[in-house]
C-alpha cells in the first residue's frame, strides 16, 4: 500500500537560471527562508527570492524572482554553499577554498585584520546544527582537507574563521557531519563516529567510499543516516547503535534527507520515499538527472543540473486521512504525533483529537476494544458519538447530533456488524463496560442523561446485574425513555427503583405490588414482599404507608406489621401515632396483636389503653381457642401463658374490664385469681385457687407473688389468709380431692413457718392436730421467737448504756457555754448560724437543728447514736 506523501513542484525553471547558455550546470544550492542561492559550474552564485503561491485550485506553487548573481572570480565550479544567516554570510567552497560572502551583496568578505577569512585545501565541510558552544554570532564548522588525515573544527565569525580543534582520523575522511561533539565520518573503508572533544571513536561499519559515494547525513539529535552496502540507508546514533531498522534504497542513491516520518532519497532516476516508521517504501517519483537533494529547515529541495524543485509534503491531514481510510491506524497516529512540532498547538490538539477518535472507531469496527477505548479516552470523544451507533440507546430527548464530517463510516451497529449477532453482542458488552467507566468522570459532563439512559437500556437488555446498582445510586436516567424500555425487558423491580429515584414512590409500589401479586413477571427479587415492607417501613410518606399497609397486612400480617414495628427511630422519619396505627390495624387482629405486643412489651408503653387492649386480645384469643373443637391444647397452653404473664406483670391494664370479661368463664380461673389479686381481693383469689381449682402450689405462689413488693406484715397477712382458707374450707370440700386442704395447710406451715405469727396460728389450728405433724413449724417458730427476744434484749441493753453515756456528756457540757456566732460554721452543712437555736452533737459541737433532723432522717442507723439535746 502506498501513500501519496509528497508532490514535486518546480521552483526555479531552467530559463530563469541560464537562459540559453546550455553549459551552465547547478552545482549546489542553499535555501534560507525565502532566499534561494544556487552555485554553478561557471563560478557564479545566483540569489533568488522564492515565494509560495497557492493557486485557485488550492495547489501550492512557487514563483522565483531573481535578485542577483555574482561571479566569484575563480573559474571553478562552486562546490558548496552554506548560509550563516545570523552573520549574514554565505560560506562558500570553491576551488578547494572556503571563504565568506555577504548574503545580500554577494561580495566576498575581505580578511579581517586579526585573522584570515579563508581556508585552503578543503575537500568538504559541514555546519554543526547542534553546537555545544551556544554563541549565536559564530558558526561551528567541520572541515575535511585534501592532504591530511584530519578533521578541523573552525569557528566562523562575520569576517574571519578560526581553527579551534584538529583531530586525526585513521584514514582519509571523505564526508562529514557534525552534531554536538560528535563527528560522523565516512573514511575510505568505513564509517565512524568521532568525539572531537575527547578523541574517543566508534567504528560503525565497513563501506568502500571509493566504490560508492558515501552519505553522511545528520537527521536529528545525535542521529545520522548513512549509505550502507547493498543500497541500504542505515541509521546510527552517536553511540554507534542503530535504533531504527534500515531502509532499502537502490545501489545508486546520491543523497538522502529526512522529512519526518519519511526518508527521502534521490538516485539517478527516482525519488524514493520510505517511512521511518515501518521501513516500507511509500512513494516513488520519477526524477531524471537529479543530482542534489537537501533539506532546509524541513523543506526538501531537489535540483537537476538545470532546474530546482521543491518536494512539497501533501497536507498532513490528507496523508493521515489516506492512512485512516486504509485502516492504518498506528501509522496515521504516528504521522499525526510526529507533526506536533510543525503545527500550532491549538490546531494540533484539534487534529490530534479527531485522528484519535477516528482511529478509535476504526479499531472499534475491528472489535479491538482495548485499543479503541484508549484512543477514545485520549481523543476525548463525546461518548454520544459512540452511543449513537447503537440504535435507540440515546434518549428521544437528547439534543445530540453526530459531528460532521463523520468520524467513521458506520451508519449504526447493524451496519457495522453486517448481521453478525455475536459481533453486536461484543460491541454491546464493550459499551457497557465503557459507559460504566466513564459515567462518573468528566467525559460524561453535559451528557449524563444520555449516558445513564443508554447504560440503563443496555443493562436491562443484557440482563446485567449492575442495573440495580445504577438505579439505586445517583443517576440521571431519563424517566420517559426508561419506563417503556424496562417494561419491555420485564425489569419491573428496577422500574420501581427508577420511579422511587424520581420521587414517584406510589408508582414504584404499585409496580412491585403487581409483581408480588403475580400480575407481572419479574424474578429479580424473590423477597420482593419483604422489600416492600422494608420500603414502607422506612418511608417518610405517611399517606403512602396508610395506603399500602393494608395490602401488606392482608398478604402477610406477621411480616406486614413490620411496617409499624420495625420503623427506624430517626430524626428524618416522622413518628407514627400509635392510636392511628391501632385504628388502622383494626380488622387485622393478628397484626394488631403483634403491634400491641410491640408497644407494650418492647417499647414499654405506659398507656393503660394499650395494656388493656393487649390483655383483651390475648383473652379473646384464648377464648376463641377454647371454643374450637377439637381443641389444640398446646396452643391453648401457650396462649394462656402469654395472657397470664401479662396479667401478672403489667399493672396498667384495667382489671375491671378484664374481670368483667372473665366473670362467667369457669375455664380461666387462674387468670381470674390473678385479677382478684391485682384488686387486692386476696380472699376471692385464694378461694378460687384453693376451693375451685384445688391448686395449692398456685395458691402458695399467689401469696408470694401478691406480696412480693410489700412488707413482711402484708405477706404475713396473706399467708394467714391462705391458712384460714385452707382450714375453713375443709368441711366444704369433698374428701376425695387431689389433695387435702388440711394437708396443704400443714405443708404451708412447715415450709413457710417464718412468715406466720405462731401464736395466732396455734390459736387457729384445730385441736386434733398432732404435735408431730407441726414439728418443723413449731421448731422454727420457737427458735425464731427466742431469737427475737434475745436480740431485743441486747438492743435494750445497748440503748441503756448509750443513754447513760449521753447523760454524762450532757452534764459535762452544761458547765461550759457553747459559742455560737455568725462566723462559726455548722459541722454538718458548713453554713454559718443565724439564730441562737442549735443542737449539740456529742462533744459539744453545735450544728443546725434542721441539719440534725436531716441526718437522722437519712441514716436511721445513726439516729441511735446521735441523741440530740436542745440547748439554749
Amino acid at each position, binding site marked *: 500500500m502506498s501513500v501519496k506523501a509528497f508532490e514535486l513542484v518546480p521552483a526555479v525553471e531552467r530559463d530563469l537560471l541560464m537562459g540559453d547558455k546550455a553549459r551552465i550546470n547547478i552545482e549546489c544550492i542553499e535555501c534560507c527562508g525565502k532566499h534561494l542561492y544556487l552555485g554553478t559550474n561557471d563560478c557564479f552564485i545566483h540569489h533568488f527570492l522564492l515565494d509560495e503561491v497557492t493557486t485557485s485550485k488550492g495547489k501550492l506553487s512557487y514563483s522565483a524572482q531573481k535578485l542577483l548573481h555574482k561571479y566569484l572570480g575563480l573559474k571553478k565550479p562552486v562546490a558548496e554553499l552554506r548560509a550563516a544567516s545570523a552573520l549574514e554570510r554565505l560560506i562558500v567552497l570553491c576551488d578547494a577554498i572556503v571563504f565568506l560572502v555577504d548574503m545580500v551583496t554577494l561580495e566576498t568578505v575581505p580578511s579581517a585584520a586579526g585573522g584570515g577569512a579563508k581556508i585552503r585545501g578543503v575537500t568538504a565541510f559541514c555546519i554543526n546544527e547542534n553546537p555545544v558552544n551556544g554563541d549565536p554570532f559564530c558558526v561551528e564548522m567541520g572541515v575535511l582537507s585534501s592532504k591530511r588525515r584530519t578533521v578541523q573544527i573552525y569557528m566562523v565569525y562575520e569576517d574571519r574563521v578560526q581553527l579551534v580543534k584538529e583531530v586525526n582520523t*585513521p584514514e582519509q575522511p571523505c564526508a562529514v557531519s557534525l552534531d554536538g561533539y560528535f563527528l560522523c565520518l565516512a573514511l575510505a573503508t568505513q564509517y565512524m563516529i568521532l568525539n572531537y572533544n575527547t578523541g574517543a571513536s566508534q567504528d560503525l561499519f565497513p563501506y568502500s567510499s571509493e566504490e560508492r559515494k558515501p552519505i553522511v547525513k545528520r537527521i536529528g539529535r545525535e542521529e545520522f543516516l548513512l549509505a*550502507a552496502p547493498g543500497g541500504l540507508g542505515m541509521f546510527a546514533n552517536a553511540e554507534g547503535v542503530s535504533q531504527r531498522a534500515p531502509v532499502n534504497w537502490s545501489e545508486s542513491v546520491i543523497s538522502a534527507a529526512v522529512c519526518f516520518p519519511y526518508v527521502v532519497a534521490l538516485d539517478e532516476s527516482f525519488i524514493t520515499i520510505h517511512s521511518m516508521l515501518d521501513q516500507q517504501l511509500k512513494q516513488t517519483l520519477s526524477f531524471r538527472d537529479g543530482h542534489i537533494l537537501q533539506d532546509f529547515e524541513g523543506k526538501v529541495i531537489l535540483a537537476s543540473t538545470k532546474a530546482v524543485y521543491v518536494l512539497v509534503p501533501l497536507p498532513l491531514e490528507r496523508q493521515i486521512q489516506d492512512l485512516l481510510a486504509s485502516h492504518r491506524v498506528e501509522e496515521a497516529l504516528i504521522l499525526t504525533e510526529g507533526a506536533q512540532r510543525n503545527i500550532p498547538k491549538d490546531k494540533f490538539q484539534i487534529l490530534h483529537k479527531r485522528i484519535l477518535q477516528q482511529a478509535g472507531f476504526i479499531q472499534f469496527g475491528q472489535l479491538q476494544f482495548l485499543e479503541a477505548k484508549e484512543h477514545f479516552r485520549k481523543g476525548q470523544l463525546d461518548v454520544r458519538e459512540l452511543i449513537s451507533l447503537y440504535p435507540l440507546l440515546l434518549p428521544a430527548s437528547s439534543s445530540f447530533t453526530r459531528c460532521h464530517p463523520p468520524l467513521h463510516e458506520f451508519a449504526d451497529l447493524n451496519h457495522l456488524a453486517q448481521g453478525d449477532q455475536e459481533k453486536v453482542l461484543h460491541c454491546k458488552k464493550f459499551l457497557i463496560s465503557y459507559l460504566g467507566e466513564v459515567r462518573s468522570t468528566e467525559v460524561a459532563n453535559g451528557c449524563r442523561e444520555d449516558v445513564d439512559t443508554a447504560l440503563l437500556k443496555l443493562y436491562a437488555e443484557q440482563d446485567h446485574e449492575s442495573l440495580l446498582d445504577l438505579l439505586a445510586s445517583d443517576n440521571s436516567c431519563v424517566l420517559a425513555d426508561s419506563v417503556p424500555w424496562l417494561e419491555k425487558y420485564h425489569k419491573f423491580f428496577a422500574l420501581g427503583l427508577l420511579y422511587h429515584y424520581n420521587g414517584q414512590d406510589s408508582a414504584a409500589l404499585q409496580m412491585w405490588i403487581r409483581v408480588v401479586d403475580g400480575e407481572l413477571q419479574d424474578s429479580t427479587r424473590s423477597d420482593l414482599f419483604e422489600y416492600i415492607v422494608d420500603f414502607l417501613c422506612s418511608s417518610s410518606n405517611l399517606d403512602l404507608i396508610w395506603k399500602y399497609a393494608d395490602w401488606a397486612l392482608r398478604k402477610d400480617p406477621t411480616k406486614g406489621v413490620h411496617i409499624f414495628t420495625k420503623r427506624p427511630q430517626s430524626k428524618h422519619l416522622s413518628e407514627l401515632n400509635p392510636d392511628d396505627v391501632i385504628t388502622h390495624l383494626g380488622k387485622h387482629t393478628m397484626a394488631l396483636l403483634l403491634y400491641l405486643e410491640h408497644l407494650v412489651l418492647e417499647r414499654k408503653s405506659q398507656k393503660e389503653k394499650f395494656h388493656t387492649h393487649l390483655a383483651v386480645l390475648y383473652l379473646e384469643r384464648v377464648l376463641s381457642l377454647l371454643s374450637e373443637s377439637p381443641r389444640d391444647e398446646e396452643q391453648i397452653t401457650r396462649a394462656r401463658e402469654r395472657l397470664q404473664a401479662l396479667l401478672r406483670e403489667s399493672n396498667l391494664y384495667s382489671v375491671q374490664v378484664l374481670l368483667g370479661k372473665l366473670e362467667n368463664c369457669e375455664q380461666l380461673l387462674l387468670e381470674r385469681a390473678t385479677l382478684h389479686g391485682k384488686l387486692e381481693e386476696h380472699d376471692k383469689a385464694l378461694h378460687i385457687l384453693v376451693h375451685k381449682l384445688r391448686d395449692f402450689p398456685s395458691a402458695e405462689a399467689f401469696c408470694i407473688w401478691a406480696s412480693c413488693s410489700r412488707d413482711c406484715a402484708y405477706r404475713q397477712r396473706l399467708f394467714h389468709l391462705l391458712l384460714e382458707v385452707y382450714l375453713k374450707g375443709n368441711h366444704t370440700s369433698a374428701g376425695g380431692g387431689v389433695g387435702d386442704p388440711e394437708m396443704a395447710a400443714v405443708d404451708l406451715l412447715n415450709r413457710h413457718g417464718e412468715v406466720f405469727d405462731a401464736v395466732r396460728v396455734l390459736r387457729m389450728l384445730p385441736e386434733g392436730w398432732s404435735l408431730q405433724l407441726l414439728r418443723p413449724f413449731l421448731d422454727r417458730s420457737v427458735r425464731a421467737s427466742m431469737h427475737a427476744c434475745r436480740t431485743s434484749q441486747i438492743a435494750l441493753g445497748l440503748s441503756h448504756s448509750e443513754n447513760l453515756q449521753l447523760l454524762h456528756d450532757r452534764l459535762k457540757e452544761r458547765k461550759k457555754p457553747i459559742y455560737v456566732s455568725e462566723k462559726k460554721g455548722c459541722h454538718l452543712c458548713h453554713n454559718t448560724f443565724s439564730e441562737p437555736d442549735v443542737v449539740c452533737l456529742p462533744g459539744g459541737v453545735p450544728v443546725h437543728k434542721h441539719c440534725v433532723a436531716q441526718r437522722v432522717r437519712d441514716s436511721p442507723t445513726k439516729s441511735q447514736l446521735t441523741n440530740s439535746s436542745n440547748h439554749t
Partner: protein
Amino acid sequence: MPELSKMKKPDVKVVLLGDMNVGKTSLLHRYTERKFKDTISTVGGAFFLKQWGPYNISIWDTAGREQFHGLGSMYCRGAAAIILTYDVTNWQSLSELEERFLSLTDTANHDCIYALVGNKVDLTDPKAHQSQDSDVASEDRTDSEDMRTEPQLPTPPTSPASLSGVMLQKQVTPEDAAALYGRILRYKGLDETSSQPAEKMCFETSAKTGYNVDSLFEALFDLVLPSILRQRNENQESPTVDLEECRGSSNKRAKSSCC
C-alpha cells in the same frame, strides 16, 4: 505491527545472527505472529519490539547475506543476547557461525548471553512435527485475538524433503552444537563453570512447526532480565553514555597509542 513499537525505547536488545537461509526471519515470524509464512531474504535488518512484563525487548533480525555482513557488529553493539542460528541440514551453516559471525559479537555487552539454535529440525526429526505443549499453552496465553485468527495456513512446500515426506539427513547433531558452544565460551574468554551450560543454551527448533520456538525466546528473555536491571541502574547513575567507556578492542587509535 511494529510501527507502534518504534515509539518506545527498548530496554534490551536481542540479535539473531546466522547465515542466509537458515531461517532467522522465519523464527521471528513464528514467535511474533505465530505463523510460518513465505519470506524473502532479509535486506539490511529489521526489528521487532516485544513487551515482556514491564520491559521492552527489541529483537533484531539481521541479514545473513555476505553483502550485509559488515553491518553485523553494529547490530550487535550493546546486545544482551545473541541467537546464533544454523540449519541442522547444513553443516556449512554451523561452521559459518564460527568463521564469520562470531567475531561480529565483539561489540555485544560483556555479559551477553549466547544461544545456539539449530533450525529446520522438522526436516530431520519426526518429533518436531508438532509444536510442543508449552508452545500450544503459550498460544492460549497470548491475547484471544490469536485464537480467532484462521487456522494455520498450509505451509508452502519449502524443500524437496517436505514435498516427498522423506526425512533429510541431519548434518549437525546436538553434540556438534554443544562443542561449538564450548568453543564460543573459550573465544569469549568465559569460564565454562560460571556460564550457562550448553544443554541450556543449545536449542533445536522448527520455525515451520513452531517446535521449541517459544521455549527458545522465553528462556532467553528470562536470562536477560538481570541485564535489563543492570542497565536501568547504570542509566540512573549516568544518563549519558561516555564513549570512552564503551570503546572496544577495535579502536585502532587506542591500540596504537598504547604501544
